[in-house]
């Protein structure tokens, strides 16, 4: 972003990679897949690179409002400096916090989740998916809480997946009834409290009941949890966990 800005260029979108996209080995692949799609579609975008910093979501949800606000105000400064108007996120937590919480601190940008953007491009005919690649794969989708219940985004991921496969299946608990993967609210970063079971195992069982070939996710935390669940159940050979962006990249052979 800094380079482009220095040259007087203003990309249309800021692609917010997020901490998981930058540092999580598995999720880096999602960030790469999504970038390839954007490039393929000739979307004008840039990333902040080293200037990006945590949105403050885990801090806020763990009760550290002070730290969250410091992060948020810094990020908002940065957005203002680079005159950012539109932000695309791949992480639902980043999406939620930018869209719903930053405005309280003066950060007002148009915030778009990548599933919304991709779905829009599909509607406009700009993004044409090749349904032959994944055609016969049975795919199920796990709703991330921060896209679904938190922001009512249920249809876009489904419409993308349904154009990737003819064999899309719903879990019993889906959409607003979906079970959390267990990682939100900063749980990702700590041991779960004592119980009889880990949430991610319960959720993986939901997914396994649909007998899928692929479990699609749309959130870095959900991805970690579902991948762990598959390992725990010794299913990681037969069943794969992909992010929606990766599935699109596969279908486009990017």
């Amino acid at each position, binding site marked *: 972003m*800094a380079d*482009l800005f220095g040259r007087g260029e203003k990309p249309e979108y800021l*692609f917010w*990679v997020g*901490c998981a996209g*930058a*540092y999580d080995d598995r999720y*880096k692949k999602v*960030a*790469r897949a999504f970038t390839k799609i*954007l*490039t393929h579609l000739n979307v*004008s*975008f*840039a*990333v902040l*690179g080293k200037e*990006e*910093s945590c949105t*403050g979501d*885990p*801090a*806020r*949800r*763990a*009760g*550290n*409002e*002070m*730290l969250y*606000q*410091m992060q948020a*105000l810094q990020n908002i400064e940065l957005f203002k400096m680079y005159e950012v108007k539109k932000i695309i996120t791949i992480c639902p937590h980043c999406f*939620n916090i930018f869209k*719903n*919480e930053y405005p*309280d*601190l003066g950060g007002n940008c148009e915030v778009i989740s990548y599933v919304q953007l991709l779905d829009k491009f599909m509607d406009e005919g700009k993004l044409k998916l090749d349904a032959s690649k994944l055609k016969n794969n049975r795919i199920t989708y796990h709703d991330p*809480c921060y896209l679904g*219940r*938190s*922001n*009512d985004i249920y249809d876009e991921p489904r419409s993308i997946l349904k154009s990737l496969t003819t064999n899309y299946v719903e879990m019993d608990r889906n959409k607003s*009834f979906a*079970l*959390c993967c*267990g990682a*939100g*609210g900063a*749980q990702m*970063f*700590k041991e*779960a*409290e*004592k*119980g009889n*079971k*880990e*949430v991610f195992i*319960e959720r993986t069982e939901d997914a396994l009941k649909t007998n899928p070939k692929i479990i699609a996710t749309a959130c870095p935390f959900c991805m970690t949890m579902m991948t762990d669940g598959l390992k725990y159940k010794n299913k990681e050979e037969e069943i794969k966990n992909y992010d929606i962006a990766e599935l699109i990249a596969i279908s486009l052979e990017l």
Partner: protein
Amino acid sequence: MIKQIVFAIALLITLGAFTFTILRIISFFKLTKKAFPVRDFGKRFGVMMEVAFGQTKIFRRPVIGFLHALVFWGFCVILIGSIEMVIDGLFGTDKVLKFLGLFYDIIMASGDVFALLIAISILVFLFRRVFLHIKRFEGIEMKKISHLDANIALSIILFLMLSLLGMNSAYYSHTTLVGGTIEGVYPVSKFLSAIFSGLTTDSTLVQYEIFWWMHILLIFLFANMLPYSKHFHVFMSVPNVFLSRLEPLGKLPNMDNVTREVKLMMDPNTAFATPAAGAPIERFGVKDAEDASWKNYFDSLACTECGRCTSVCPANITGKKLSPRKVIMDLRARMKEKGPMLVKNGKDYTDNKSLLRDYISEEELWACTTCNACAKECPININHPTLIIDMRRYLVMEEGSAPGELKAVFSNIENNGAPWQYSSEDRLLWAADLEMNVK
């Protein structure tokens, strides 16, 4: 005339007791903190029509939801009849609303049918509660008294409906016997009166009076019991839905007092924006009942203890200590305990207990994933996660206590701008050798 006087006295007692209770409750509200400003009346009206009158969230469980919706809609219709009874009782009139004509017939007819439907639904509810083991109705927060409370209220409703039907059918028989015109239409009671035919005019009149008094006195009694029971939701749920948080579920409210501090830290020139010296120092987050917002407290009074929230909570499902219903019920219980003392002794009163720890443990609070399943499920739009997070805010900002891993996350975010301990220099490694217009 005697009847009117007796009625007026009964009504006065009812209203007096009710006013006393409500004023008490209002005095507790005065102890709470502010929440969001109530605006967007149009939108609120829409939510109320949809969620309260349309019972949309109740229908998330379709079968039992349908029965509840019948009870709710029936109550709304029957309420008009009760208002008529109050006017009749006070002024010695008889079926005073009959001038409404066709509308009156419709109201009376549907009230009559609803009375039967409600009675049946209540029997199903009672049967479920007494004989079936429903997981949703159990939990550590559900004491014997909670079950007793539910069963008593259900029984009263049952008797309310039976007395209404009795009253209607006695009215029908009596009016038929004396050859008068029947005001209103009573499909069910007409049928019932046929069963009990062969009575004299005197006995039908006595019957009518007995049921009339029974019905109205039960209403008076019920109204005064409600505020002390989970069935307070009969009054509170519609207003609670009207006062719903209108923001997306994922949004946490901003702490403006923290914003002031942070801005001060980042730019001392904004010091003038801080409140004048001498302003009381606000506590960060929620430690005790009076730190909660009026909306949290309203929620807690409106809660029906239905357990729908807890039944979808991933933490609870997997055997963790957290139950969102308990959090809400605890707030109500703690306010009941401490509220009167605060009102009496001033806001500095302390009994060396608090909502946090004495009622809600840290373990419960740290189990929440903020998934919002509870808030989505609650039929009256109660929002649990905001209260849970507010308590975490107290723990973290006032006490500096958090699970060790989270403390590490805090310092990573502070030092590296990420929850993990990686250098911000490495932020672009993911994009290495990608061919694209990323800069």
